[in-house]
């Protein structure tokens, strides 16, 4: 193999090309990305960067010189428009073609937006996915401005925390009965609801958006499911993402909630691989797709290794974090399929951990300002060890003493 092309210069793409060189691959490596910047970290976009505490240079995953030093051709601001599988080449938007022996798709995901019939085409609406979104939003973050946040997932909640810290008046709408419903237990939702309310966020759960209201083409408020209305100067849309399968779909590659890959990151075309937010893969008898830095890095590295002949399957060791106000939430494991939750009071004021079990098996831990619980839980989950739930619930017992 002489020629590796990677499409999508985000977290996964950057990890993949770096891994190829770290493992000694000497052939040609090209990383093509649509965005103007070299690969950067997205997590700070709804945290430190939005807060204005982190300049652009610090967001970059690697210094710009890294790619040159490693003889990686980085083409930023370049969209791939299609894949010619027969001819084994990708076509760029400017008409040029790049041949490949192996191709990786690390195209990430796109934010869901609201339909135009309910005001989704108004001005003053912002998703939180890329630098351009967040840079465009910055001018709205004036003290006293009224921010409407649609969606109570991690991104919506982080944006709410930043906005309220900067002195904006924040209303957050969640259509489901509780915030974080899709990703966490009620105990964790309760914790974050209390946190946001304590910071003055008007948090409304079980409250759908009927439509956004506009004036002169710009959002000025919203009508809610119960017929009431609220005013807003701008709106942040945090209602989830969908995997970006555009290229794979057009090329006839098998899809299943994302680009379907096997345990080694191979798609239905043996010369094409996928990793990160865009890829779904087999895990414990199901097919899952993860939207996290951990998965983007580890799956991309597994794909690089597979390309170079390794046979180790990718088995994720999931972890995630979220920063809201002065709370750091750290999550180890995947809680899917839990049937029991144990709350462990924290070791310090304002801390707590939530432990997810299926029967007696520990699946996941949400730790709020409680890194010990996170790290210990992570170790146990990765080792397949399950401490007795009763022991975990007893804060007078040291975690380490339980197993």
């Amino acid at each position, binding site marked *: 193999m002489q020629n590796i092309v990677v499409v999508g210069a985000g977290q996964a793409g950057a990890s993949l090309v770096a891994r190829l060189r770290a493992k000694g691959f000497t052939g040609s490596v090209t990383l093509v990305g649509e965005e103007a910047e070299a690969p950067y970290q997205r997590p700070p976009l709804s945290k430190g960067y939005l807060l204005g505490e982190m300049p652009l240079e*610090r967001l970059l995953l*690697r*210094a710009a*010189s890294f790619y040159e030093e490693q003889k990686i051709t980085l083409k930023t601001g370049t969209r791939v428009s299609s894949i010619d599988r027969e001819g084994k080449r990708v076509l760029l938007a400017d008409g040029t073609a790049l041949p490949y022996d192996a191709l990786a798709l690390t195209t990430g995901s796109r934010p869901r937006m609201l339909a135009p019939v309910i005001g989704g085409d108004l001005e003053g609406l912002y998703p939180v996915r890329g630098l351009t979104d967040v840079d465009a939003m910055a001018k709205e973050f004036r003290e006293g401005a009224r921010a409407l946040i649609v969606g109570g997932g991690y991104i919506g909640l982080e944006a709410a925390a930043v906005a309220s810290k900067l002195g904006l008046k924040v209303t957050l709408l969640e259509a489901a009965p509780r915030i974080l419903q899709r990703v966490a237990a009620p105990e964790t939702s309760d914790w974050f609801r209390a946190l946001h309310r304590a910071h003055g966020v008007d948090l409304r759960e079980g409250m759908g958006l009927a439509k956004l209201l506009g004036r002169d083409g710009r959002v000025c408020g919203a009508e809610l499911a119960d017929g009431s209305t609220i005013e807003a100067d701008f709106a942040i849309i945090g209602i989830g993402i969908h995997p970006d399968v555009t290229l794979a779909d057009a090329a006839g590659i098998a899809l299943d909630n994302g680009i379907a890959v096997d345990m080694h990151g191979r798609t239905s075309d043996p010369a094409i691989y996928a990793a990160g937010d865009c890829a779904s893969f087999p895990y414990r008898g199901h097919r899952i797709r993860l939207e996290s830095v951990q998965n983007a890095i580890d799956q991309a590295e597994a794909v690089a290794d597979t390309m170079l002949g390794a046979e180790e399957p990718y088995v994720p060791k999931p972890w995630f974090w979220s920063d809201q106000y002065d709370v750091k939430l*750290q999550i180890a494991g995947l809680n899917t399929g839990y049937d029991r939750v144990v709350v462990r009071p924290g070791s310090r004021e304002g801390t707590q951990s939530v432990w997810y079990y299926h029967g007696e098996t520990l699946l996941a831990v949400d730790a709020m300002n409680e890194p010990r619980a996170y790290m210990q839980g992570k170790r146990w989950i990765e080792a397949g060890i399950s401490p007795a739930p009763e022991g975990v619930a007893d804060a007078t017992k040291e975690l380490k003493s339980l197993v």
Partner: protein
Amino acid sequence: MAKITYIEHNGTEHVVDVPNGMTVMEGARDNGIPGIDADCGGACACSTCHVYVDPAWTDRLPAKDDMEIDMLDFAWNPGETSRLTCQLRVTDALDGLVVRMPEKQI
């Protein structure tokens, strides 16, 4: 600005200037120095930016907060002089700092 010496586990030394306000982790990242993974990008969530600080420096660095202490406890083979480099912010006072990488990060 501080001159910082990063010593890889295999003994390879890198001496670089890191601007004030950056972290010791970012100094390694931006200079392409291997051995510090920093998977979480400095959020104090991964403990893959662990180093051993030269013993002459342990008392000269800003104290660890609770979060760093607890995360370090679970880093790979932590010791007395262990620090998370993403929590060490560079100032002139760090000029001459020497850090050594562990054999691996996790």
